[in-house]
């Protein structure tokens, strides 16, 4: 049996969201081993590989997963946006990270908007949340800019997680 899984290519004004490539593990590994990942997780190299593979494994399992985000202008890898449903997640999550040097330019907002819209309209997911550590002020600001609202009743992956709930397109139109 050969199974071919389509990872949709999403385009925005400045970015392309596309399938992760095996050689991009190095950038991922550097990020998750660094202090920059303090609000996500810090992993050594073997654990980072396992996480990278586990995220990629979402596509065949669920029909969603991680995209790597490339800048149209020069092909630079600016970061990733991922829709994940690890066993520990009460609901499907959208998350994002940027590589060093690409912050502050609205790339995460632009990529997450495209991924969120695809998740609701193309993939037809019923709900989408973001689990964010209380101290991760940049991600909180981005979730709010995306129109997500803090859901105090929802359970996070960890007890301390803040759960930001993303609005479906129809709900956003009514806001």
């Amino acid at each position, binding site marked *: 049996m050969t199974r071919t*899984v389509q990872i949709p290519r999403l385009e925005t004004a400045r970015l392309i969201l596309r399938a992760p490539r095996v050689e991009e593990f190095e950038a991922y590994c550097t990020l998750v081993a660094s202090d920059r990942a303090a609000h996500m997780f810090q992993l050594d190299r073997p654990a980072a590989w396992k996480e990278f593979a*586990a995220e990629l494994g979402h596509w065949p399992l669920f029909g969603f997963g991680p995209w790597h985000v490339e800048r149209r202008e020069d092909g630079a890898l600016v970061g990733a946006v991922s829709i994940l449903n690890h066993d520990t997640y009460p609901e499907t999550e959208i998350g994002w990270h940027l590589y060093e040097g690409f912050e502050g330019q609205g790339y995460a907002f632009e990529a997450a908007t495209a991924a969120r819209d695809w998740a609701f309209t193309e993939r037809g997911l019923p709900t989408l949340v973001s689990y964010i550590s209380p101290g991760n002020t940049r991600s909180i600001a981005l979730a709010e800019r995306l129109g997500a609202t803090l859901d105090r009743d929802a359970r996070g992956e960890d007890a301390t997680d803040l759960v930001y709930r993303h609005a479906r397109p129809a709900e956003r139109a009514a806001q």
Partner: protein
Amino acid sequence: MTLALHIPRLETPRLILRAPEPADFEPLCAFLTDPVRAWGFGVEKDRPTAWRWFAANIGHWALRGYGYFTIELKETGTPCGISGIWEPEGWPEPEVGWVVYDGYEGKGIAYEAATRAREWAYTDLGLTTLTSNIVPGNDRSVALAERMGATYERTYHNPNMGEDMLYRHPSPSALGLDTDSDGSPEAYA
């Protein structure tokens, strides 16, 4: 943009080796989180980390072009273990691995599955050599590796398992797997 997963369905007299499916997670989780049974394979501390192993195996197929198959018993259709080719970050080279779940040992299932996985790796993937990593003291796995014709090569430090023994399997030609259609070995050598 497509992610191609080439996971074949392999058969032996009693077994089917096939792509992992979501329903295969429960028996795998029971194995991986059992500190006694999974000792020689790598114990996962809880269900969430076992789930990551399950998802990572699918990602491993996508990244490497090989991974662990689910072993299914033909007679009942039940998953009874996993076997395949494994090379996550930090491994010295690709290995043949095998696991048989509780209640299925002593029937030659691991031997039958691992031999088929090795044959597939040599003939279809074109790998030219294969190893098996075995934790010192895992005598059952040593016995199986030796039954497959593998021999001890060296002991090294594995990032996940600590001190680990590397067994080397016979080459494709030693197993008679690289002869061409007229039976001449290495016709193009």
